[in-house]
């Protein structure tokens, strides 16, 4: 229970950090109360009470317990009809403005600029409470020099990954693929014919709730080695002091041998390696595997 209360407390901070729709809801409820717009009393009282329950950490913790620990704090707000109530309050407010304008127009007093300006302000407030353009979760990618890889070319990158997957699948009904995270992330979504030694739950922890399957130590080591390999950017991008040392390269090679053996034991028959690796790393992998890699746009493919 203590953990739930803590999650509820922190959850409210996170919920209001990213956007202010909750604040807009409170403002609408206040408007409906003070303006005595009580036509939908049942909905108003339900919304007001449950909003209070969601904000107070103790009651929010109870609601989280009711929803089961499968869900995080933000899902208790699904019990509050946020969208209908804000839209209802907004409509009542705008209707009041335009009805006052109509009465004034008939009496020959009011210009149209005032209700238009107020309507524009309302819509502006609505968007100020929201994402205001591209939300944070859409901004991905790492900077490589001056270039944002994923942010600038998401569709191109997806096509490259799919071309690599097609090349790996060529001539086979099913394959067991070991590849960088971005490729394995896409693989099972692209085709059910691509098997993987370990799943997306290793880097997307939310998926661990969907099954009881465990990942063995050897598979976790394979994942860590592949992540380390992905982090080996071309040497010319780094200052000399930041480049990998000979000891680090030797350790990488030793771990490569161990993990490639583990991959073969786990049924892997296709390996994709990032294409930006320096040639010395590719040559070492070819020596260990005893086969030559095939260069595909952005990747090296080893067919075992």
């Amino acid at each position, binding site marked *: 229970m203590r953990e739930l209360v803590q999650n509820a407390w922190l959850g409210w901070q996170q919920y209001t950090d990213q956007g202010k729709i909750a604040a807009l809801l409170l403002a609408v409820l206040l408007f409906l109360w003070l303006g005595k717009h009580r036509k939908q009393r049942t909905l108003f009282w339900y919304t007001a009470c449950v909003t209070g329950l969601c904000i107070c950490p103790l009651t929010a913790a109870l609601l989280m317990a009711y929803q089961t620990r499968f*869900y995080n704090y933000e899902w208790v707000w699904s019990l509050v009809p946020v969208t209908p109530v804000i839209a209802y309050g907004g409509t009542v407010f705008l209707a009041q403005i335009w009805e006052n304008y109509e009465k004034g127009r008939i009496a020959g007093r009011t210009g149209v600029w005032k209700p238009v300006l107020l309507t524009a302000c309302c819509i502006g407030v609505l968007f100020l409470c929201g994402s205001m353009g591209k939300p944070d979760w859409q901004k991905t990618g790492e900077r490589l020099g001056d270039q944002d890889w994923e942010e600038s070319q998401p569709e191109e990158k997806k096509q490259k990954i799919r071309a690599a997957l097609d090349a790996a699948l060529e001539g086979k009904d099913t394959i067991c693929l070991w590849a960088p995270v971005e490729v394995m992330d896409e693989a099972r979504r692209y085709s059910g014919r691509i098997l993987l030694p370990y799943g997306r739950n290793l880097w997307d922890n939310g998926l661990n709730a969907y099954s009881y399957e465990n990942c063995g130590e050897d598979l976790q080591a394979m994942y860590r080695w592949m992540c380390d390999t992905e982090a080996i950017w071309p040497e010319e991008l780094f200052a000399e002091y930041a480049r990998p040392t000979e000891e680090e390269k030797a350790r990488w090679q030793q771990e490569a041998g161990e993990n490639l053996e583990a991959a073969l034991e786990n049924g892997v028959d296709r390996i994709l390696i990032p294409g930006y690796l320096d040639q010395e790393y590719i040559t070492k992998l070819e020596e260990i595997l005893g086969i030559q890699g095939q260069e595909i746009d952005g990747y090296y493919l080893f067919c075992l």
Partner: protein
Amino acid sequence: MRIQDIRKSGKQNQKSQKTDLILMGVLCLVMLAEAVHLTAVVTGSTLSFCAPLYALGAGLVAAAVLLLLLGRGKKKSTGGRADREKICSQSRVSLGYRILALTAGLLILFQLIQILAGDVVYLEGDMTLETVNSFLAADGIYRVDPLTGAPYEQGMPLRIKILCLPTLYSILCRLFSMSAETVVFHVVPAFVLVCGYLVYWQLAGIFFSESKEKKVCFLILVALLLYAGDYAYGMDGLGVLYGGFRGVSFRAWVLLPYTVSLSLRGKSMRAFLCVITEACVVWTFYGLGACLFLLAGMYLSGRFLAYRRGQRSEKEGPVCVS
């Protein structure tokens, strides 16, 4: 109550009943998918067996809904004076209403295009597409781990296994020969968007039965709230525009507002269908989910207000007319 108001509320009831038929039909299709899914899980039936079974059931549901809709359409047409009145009232539609209706239509159309043609999907913590691909590849339900394609060794939680949406999507892929990505990321979210707007149009009719302009303004604000609320997981905007295939998005955008609509119209018994449908599409506390909470909350709120009204009228006493 004036005769025009009685006629308006009568027309509003008829429109609500038509929307109710369509939405109840959608809920029945989901519950039918649940029945087929549970049959497949328990008996180990293949997807090739489930798909035609579902198609048969869905065809019957669709036919029933269509017949009932046509039946209501025939009853509504009284001919003669009523039709002439309708034609006259349509010609009196104001410029303001036309502008608002056009704005609402364009916003909804843009959202539909964004879902059908867009490529941005929120995938964190979700494996629906992997699951559908696994079902299609293995021609069965939960025979392999969707994340790896390997057979299950430890199994999965029962409360996840009983949810029917991946099976429903797999069946749709088989029946219409579409790719899993098209069905999961485009077709289903577009359908969910349209269903949600039907529910919100119904809510608009309940809130603002006296004014067409207000109804359309309500719909415009709902559309704008979707755009404004796409910043975080758990918000309606992100759920509908970038993850409409998820059970939680269907619940938030269709089931919960529909439960509100049914509660406000005093049709709480029908709202139990929303409770059952929610249990079929999202993880709940043994079937006790958000729809049941909302239903109970609205009922208690209504009873509390009725009690307060009763107390007030007791205090005021009988009104004497001399």
